[in-house]
Structures are given as C-alpha cells and as structure tokens.
C-alpha cells in the first residue's frame, strides 16, 4: 500500500507540474510563479501528510485561471483540458491520502478518478460552449453573482448537514 500511495502521489505531482508547464500565461512571471507555488504546496502536503495540500492545489489553479482572464492573457490550452488535468491531479492526490489510512483497490480508484476527470472536462466544455463570449459586468450581474455564491455555499453546507454525515 505504501508503494501505491507513493506512486499515486508522484502521478498527482507530475500531472500538476505538467499543467503548469503546458499552460502559457503569455510570459507573465507572477502567474507562472503562482502555478509552481501551487505545485510546491501540493508536493509538501503529500510529503508531510497534510490534506490541505490538495485544497491548495485546487484553489490555487482556480485563482490562476482568474488571473489569466483578468490580465487578458490567452487561456492556452483550452479550459476543459486544464480542468481535466486539474481534476486528475486532485483525484490522484486524494487516492494517495486514502491509501495511507485504509484499504483501497488502487486500480478501481484510478479508473474512477479518470472517469471523474472526464466528466468535469465534459461539464466545463459544454458550459464553455453555452456561455461563449459572455461577460459578467455591471452591478446587476455582480449582485446576482454574489447571491449565487451565497446560495451555492449555503446549498453545500445544508446538504452536508442534512446528509447526516456532519
């Protein structure tokens, strides 16, 4: 199990590093640095056994995408490819942590991880086609956005509480 945990951790870091390496932030050093810092946080989390490393990876890459868009830099490769690699990295890191604490069939978990990544990439791709060219500017849009954010957070928290898992 220890070997499988190490291998999945290595795969996770490799995928995250590949994601940073293949994306071109138009020569923006800050965004590149942020990408590598995120990979560093994931690596440190996996090495030290801190699960926050996975959260840092996910949040870091979302912020990175936001910065790329804010600086009017091109999103290269397509956002669905980035979502695919990001989800794959999160899944493999999560499998690595699970392997450390309880029995898991690594093969089944990896198949599920790939499946989840493809589903996320599909959702992002389809939604990207739907909202292509749209912008979210103006007071009304922002108010609606904040409301959507609050509702989404509340929905997650409420679902969690009602599930009896909390």
């Amino acid at each position, binding site marked *: *199990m220890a070997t*499988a945990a190490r291998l999945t951790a290595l795969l996770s870091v490799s995928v995250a590093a590949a994601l940073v390496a293949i994306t071109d932030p138009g020569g923006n050093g800050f965004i590149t640095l942020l990408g590598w810092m995120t990979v560093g946080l994931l690596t440190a989390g996996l090495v030290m056994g801190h*699960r*926050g490393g*996975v*959260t840092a*990876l*996910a*949040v870091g*890459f*979302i*912020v990175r*995408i*936001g910065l*790329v*868009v*804010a600086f009017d830099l091109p*999103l290269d490769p397509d*956002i669905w490819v980035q*979502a695919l690699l*990001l989800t794959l990295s*999160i*899944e493999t*890191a*999560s499998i690595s*942590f*699970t392997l450390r604490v*309880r*029995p*898991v*069939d*690594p093969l*089944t*978990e990896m198949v*599920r991880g790939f499946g*989840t990544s493809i*589903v*996320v990439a599909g*959702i*992002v791709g389809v*939604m*990207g086609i739907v*909202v292509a060219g*749209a*912008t*979210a*500017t103006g007071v009304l*849009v*922002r108010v609606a*956005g*904040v409301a959507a*954010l609050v509702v*989404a*957070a509340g*929905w*997650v928290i409420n*679902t969690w509480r009602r*599930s*009896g*898992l909390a």
Partner: protein
Amino acid sequence: MNVRSSPRLRAYVSAGLVGLAAGLAVGSPEPVLVGTAFLVLAIVGILGGRTVPLRVSIIEWPQSMIEGEKRRIRLRFESEGDAGRTYATLNLSPGLKVVDADGARVVGGDRLMIPSVGRRVDVLITVEATIWGRHRVGPINTYTEAPLGMFDVGQMSQDRQTWVVVPEEVALRRLLLPLETNLHAGDLVSSLRGSGSEFADLRAYLPGDDPRNINWRVSSRSDGLWVNERHPERNGDVVLLVDAQVESNTGLAEVVDRSVRLGAALLKAHARRRHRLGLVTLDGMCRWIGPGSGEFHRRRLLEQLLGVFPGQVLWEAVERAVVRAAKRPAMVIALTPLMDPNMAGMLNVLRRSGIDVAVIEIDVSDQLREPERGDRELGRRVWAMERDRIRSRLSGAGIPVAVWQREDPAEVPLNQLDARRTSWRRQLG
C-alpha cells in the same frame, strides 16, 4: 461509526466557491465554469452518500491448523440497506496469509474489496498458516465509500476468533520412555510385579494365588507348586520442560522455534502412546500444566506451548512450579539451549529428588556470529568450556544430555539419550 471526508471533497467545495467568487471579481465566466463543475461533483457526492450500519460476523473458522495448511474462513456482512462498495481489513495475525477469496477481491495483505454489500453477503476466504502459533482473525474494520468517494464511513466489528496453528508434523518413531510408571493401565512394562502379560519371575505358590498363574511345567519337575510372576502394563507420566529463555533480537529466537517444534512432536507422539502429559514453559513467565490425558488436556498443552515467546523468567518462582508439575513417577524431558546456569541447577534439584530427567540441548553455536577480535575469540572459548562443564556436571548427576544440532532430524537426540540411559542401566546392573 466514523465518517471522514476525503481530501477531494474539501478541494472541490473550496475551489467551487472560489471559482464563483473569482468569476465575479474578474467579470469573466471561465473561473465560474470550473468552479461550477466542481460544485456539481461535490453536491452529487454528498447526496449519494449513505451511512448504513454494517455488521460483520465470523461464522466459520478453523478450530486448529497445521503449519502450511490452507483452511477457509466464512465472513458474513449484514447491513440494513445497500452499503455499496466496501473494503474490509481482517486484522489477521502475521502468521496467516489470505490466498483466495470468494465473493470479494484481495487488495493486498489481509484487505478485501467487496463490490457490493446488500442486506447479507457471505465471503469465503482461504487462509494459509505460514508459521505456528496462536493466530486470530478480527476485529474487522470496514470502510464504505460514497459513490464519488467524497467521504468514507469506517466501522469496526468486534467479532474475533483465535485458534492454534501447530508446527508441521515431525514423525518420531522412537521415544524416550519413562523408567517409572504410574497406576494407570498403558503399554509400558512396569518394573513392579502384578497382573500383566510380560513374564517377570517364578516363585513358590502361596495360598490365595490364582491357580491360572501356576507354571505346571516347572511345578511338575519340582516338589511344590510354582507360579509365574508378571510385570503389569502401566502408563507413564511425561513432563516437557521448554526453556525459551533467550534474549530477543539476538538471532537466537530460532532456538525457541526449534524447541516448540520438537515439543509439539513429542506431545503428539507421547499422546499417541496414551502417556499422561505435562508441560512447563519458561519464557517471560513460568507456566505449568500438571500431567493429564485426554483431548482437551492435549489442546491446553498445545495452546500453552504455542504461546511461548523469547523472554527471561524470574528464577525464584520456577523451581517451585517445576517441582509441582513434575512429581514422581514423571519423567522430565528438558528442551533447553542451556544458556542459563540456573537451568542446570534446577535440573540437578529435580534429579536429586528422584525424578527421571533427560536433557535435549538445542545447539546455538551455529547461530552465533564468529568472533571478530582475539579477546572475543578467547571469550567464546571460555564460554564453550563453561558449557562443557555444565554438561559434564549434569552427566555426573545422572542426567543424560544430548546436543541437537541444527541439521539433525529430531530423532537423533532421542536416540542418543535412549542409548545413554540404556548403557547406564547396564553399568548399574
């Protein structure tokens, strides 16, 4: 029941919310796209999660095993609903290995993956005993997963079962037989006179003698009547003294292994001859079982023998315990590396109290490292001389000692001891 969220759940929820916030901040939908996809995953994962109580019971397990043997264990998983994919850790003893599973998949060591646990699922696993000892299965930990692996539910079933794995059978064709017998009927020829089949002597007829014992052939050639005296067939008491006093982590633990293997073989062989058997084990504790017979008694002896582990005993209690377990007419067979001079002293005490004692010394010389320096070489020689002195002291006290080399079969020391005892008896007439 222990519910634990997986790192992916925190990551997806955090990234989803940050994505929505980032989309608002930069006024562009790209971060929202990724964030929304993550939030959808998190919500689906949480909605699909169930906390179904799961109970695991061990309904079939071996009562005993022989080293190297494969036996089956049947586990029953019961839940109040469909628990989905479930992983189980069996917590098998290190000497047991799962070789096959029917109804589940082995995912490494003693861990199983059951694809789907409905209301009741039976899983049949085959385990192989790789080493003797007392082994157990349980308590069994189970982990049930949510559909997207967003969290897992850990539960523990307290059911556990233990059994003994006896060492691989060593056939002993020749045994050391007790010189004295007890009062129970058996197959040993007693030195006493009584009713039996073995001819002992002739004596003059006395009133009250059974007429069937009259030796008519001798009586016809003499003045009076002569009767046959016979040796009765009696049983013997055998007490095994297993000395496991070696320091752990010195590479001498194999001595204990050899002692236990020979001890188990002796117990089995003597039980087959219907001798009454007792056992004293000296490891971290001194434990004893007085001579007795029967299947239940033999099982108790085996369990104690297989529970032996390397350790150091307090000698104050040992002498009393050994004398209590080994009373005349018992024969004591000591299986010992003779590392502790106290052992030789105690064997002397037993012999002086009239007990028939024989010693099988488990040879340790080939398990010691070669001395590297001259002073160590000298120390090793002095140590070897001390051991020779102990052996000669024991022999002088009438205790035969046979050294059991590692490469020799178990019958070699028994044959040596038998030959030595026979030669001493001949010398004594």
